[in-house]
């Protein structure tokens, strides 16, 4: 069976991540593995002390972790943060990217997991000295400790990015376990005073960085989904071959055989679509965002169908969180709601073309109140 699920992003990074995930699968997350393993350096340019890698390199890590069901905020920490930092002027960006690569600054995006980095939940006001930030951001990933938050904001009708000490931001107003088992938190910023230097950048450079971070988040989440689908199907196949009822293996019941066949065909389609997305990304295709939105809508549909089928075919075991297939099903459904759900992306796809990308992104998920 192994050959039926070839890796999407093979290589040493995949092997290392996969091995790490396999070894740590049943444990609470201790410390900060993402930084300890040096993954935050992946996208950071070599001149800033990083690995100068590509999104495909990061996708290897995402794939390796998803294969064994480990949940870590790699997309947020290793893609969104360095890509947003690129908005700052060369010197500032260099300094912070270097800190990210070596792990001396632990920066997390102050963005709802359900929204894209293009979404504005926070507004800023310029004061005589420094700025004042206000807004509610619900569902920020807090799985790993943070020393700083990168906050995308709206300021006087313009986009800007702030970098704020975690201490200044303070504790979240509520914490939750997310569907896939991460730590999520809601923050309320009420006229939070920050110094002048907290504003890293504003204007076109910010918009460009936010767009890149959004594309990356969508791409990597899609890669996570395909890797999780492979795991889900592999686990289901093993279960059907091993579990016996009525004196025979479940794998001998035709209805289950067809169901798992349908899952596999959906997986192949999803994999094809994600490879296509990465090609478009690498070629800088003009249509990339539209393709990513299509992928979002389509993968949500396939992943949900496969998750539900796997739960059903596992019977009672399908509802037990002790089972990897079950946790993978949860992960797949949670991923649907990361970086804009299918209803949001469908609305954008169906909007008249001339205004498609100009629709105000505020309150697009209803998570900003």
């Amino acid at each position, binding site marked *: 069976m192994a050959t039926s699920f070839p890796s999407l992003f093979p290589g040493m990074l995949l092997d290392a991540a996969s091995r790490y995930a396999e070894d740590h699968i049943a444990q609470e997350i201790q410390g900060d593995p993402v930084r300890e393993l040096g993954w935050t350096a992946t996208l950071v340019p070599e001149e800033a002390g990083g690995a100068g890698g590509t999104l495909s390199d990061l996708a290897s890590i995402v794939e390796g972790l998803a294969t064994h069901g480990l949940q870590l905020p790699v997309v947020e920490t290793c893609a969104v943060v360095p890509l947003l930092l690129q908005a700052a002027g060369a010197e500032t960006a260099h300094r912070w990217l270097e800190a990210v690569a070596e792990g001396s600054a632990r920066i997390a995006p102050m963005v709802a997991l359900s929204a894209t980095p293009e979404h504005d939940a926070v507004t800023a006001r310029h004061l005589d000295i420094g700025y004042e930030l206000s807004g509610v951001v*619900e569902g920020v990933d807090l799985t790993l400790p943070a020393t700083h938050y990168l906050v995308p904001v709206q300021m006087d009708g313009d986009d800007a990015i702030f970098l704020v000490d975690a201490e200044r931001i303070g504790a979240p107003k509520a914490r939750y376990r997310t569907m896939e088992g991460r730590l999520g938190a809601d923050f309320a910023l009420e006229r939070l005073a920050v110094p002048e230097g907290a504003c890293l950048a504003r204007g076109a450079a910010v918009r460009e960085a936010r767009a890149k971070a959004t594309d990356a988040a969508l791409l990597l989440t899609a890669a996570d989904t395909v890797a999780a689908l492979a795991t889900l199907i592999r686990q289901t196949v093993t279960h059907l071959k091993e579990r016996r009822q009525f004196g025979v293996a479940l794998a001998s019941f035709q209805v289950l055989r067809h169901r798992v066949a349908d899952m596999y065909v959906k997986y192949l389609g999803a994999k094809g679509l994600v490879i296509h997305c990465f090609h478009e990304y690498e070629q800088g295709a003009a249509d990339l965002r539209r393709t990513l939105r299509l992928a979002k809508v389509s993968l949500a549909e396939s992943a949900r169908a496969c998750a539900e089928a796997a739960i059903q075919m596992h019977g009672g075991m399908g509802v037990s969180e002790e089972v990897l297939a079950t946790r993978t099903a949860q992960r797949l459904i949670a991923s649907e709601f990361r970086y804009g759900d299918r209803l949001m992306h469908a609305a954008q796809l169906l909007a008249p073309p001339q205004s498609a990308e100009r629709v105000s992104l505020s309150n697009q998920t209803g998570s900003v109140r």
Partner: protein
Amino acid sequence: MSIDYAGFRRELEAFARSACPPDIRAVVAAGQKITKREYQAWQQILNAQGWGAPSWPREAGGTGWDIRQRLIFEEVMAENDCPPLYHHGLGHIGPVIIRFGTPDQKARFLPRILDGSDWWCQGYSEPGSGSDLASLSTSARLEDGEWVVNGQKIWTSHAHEASMIYMLVRTSKEAKKQEGISLLLVPMDTPGITVRPIKTIDGWHHLNEVFFDEVRVRADNLVGEVGKGWTCAKFLLERERLPPANVARLELMRRQVTQLVEQASRAAAGQRDFSGLHHKLLLCEADVKGARVMMAEATDDLIHQRPLGVQPSAIKMTCADVAQRLTTIALDAVGPDAAHRFLADAGQDVPDATWIQNYMFTRARTIAGGTSEVQRNVVANELLGA
């Protein structure tokens, strides 16, 4: 004498509104998981009114209502956000004891189901025996006038809060695996019983594994004849698949989900495309109407002791399917807001997130009580032969 159904409905409505405590109604209205606390309190209130067991015969403590009255009862209770009746006692083992039990068993167990003092759980499934229930291997041997039970049950809902378990045990090894199975009633505080919780996909605690190590049970706690437990088990399963509350509850859920979609749709202000969800809701509305008639017909057959055929399977599949579709619509409506709030700190309730848990919980509707694949086999065998 003709029954004044409209008057009956009004009487029930007045009762539901005045007698059901607001905190319990709030739990039901929010679609939260109903626990022993709500079930038990409501059962005691109903019982004090003489309505503790609407579907039992009058001589066993039931109401003597006709079929239409029972359906009205279920609908009114659902419409007014009252909890459903607790199924394991009233719906499952109660009717079995009424049909197969000894006078002593009826006297010992039925009143305690009616007044809510016993809380039952079902020990059917085992690690190796799920859909193929007849292959079960938990054993009971007779020793010094007592049954001695050894083995393991799994997926036992409510075992951690139950005072009694009704369980299938193998009392002899016959050639045909359905034979040699018996139905035993066992107090959960008997020495040798261990309950271990199972962490489930919905974040609620309801499932358990139950281990039996030399558990000694009174000989007269066996229901029906020794080795003929399969007949009781099948009788029970037919009823398990036909709970009249299901359809009324579906209508309640449909209304809740419709409201949720309207709210979410307003909040999204055109930024999310809800047209698909509205369309799916319409289909659910139609299916609930069809299911209501299916249910009424089946209940009528049950009362007149006509054979039920595939009806329990058909109704179970339909209700499970509609419930899953409804909670899926709810998931889509609230997902972006709620997926990160799956479980809140310290039991804090988050209404939107409860729908995510409900979506997960409802996955089990096509598994528990006989999977949909097995129900389809039943229907297909009827149509096409085994």
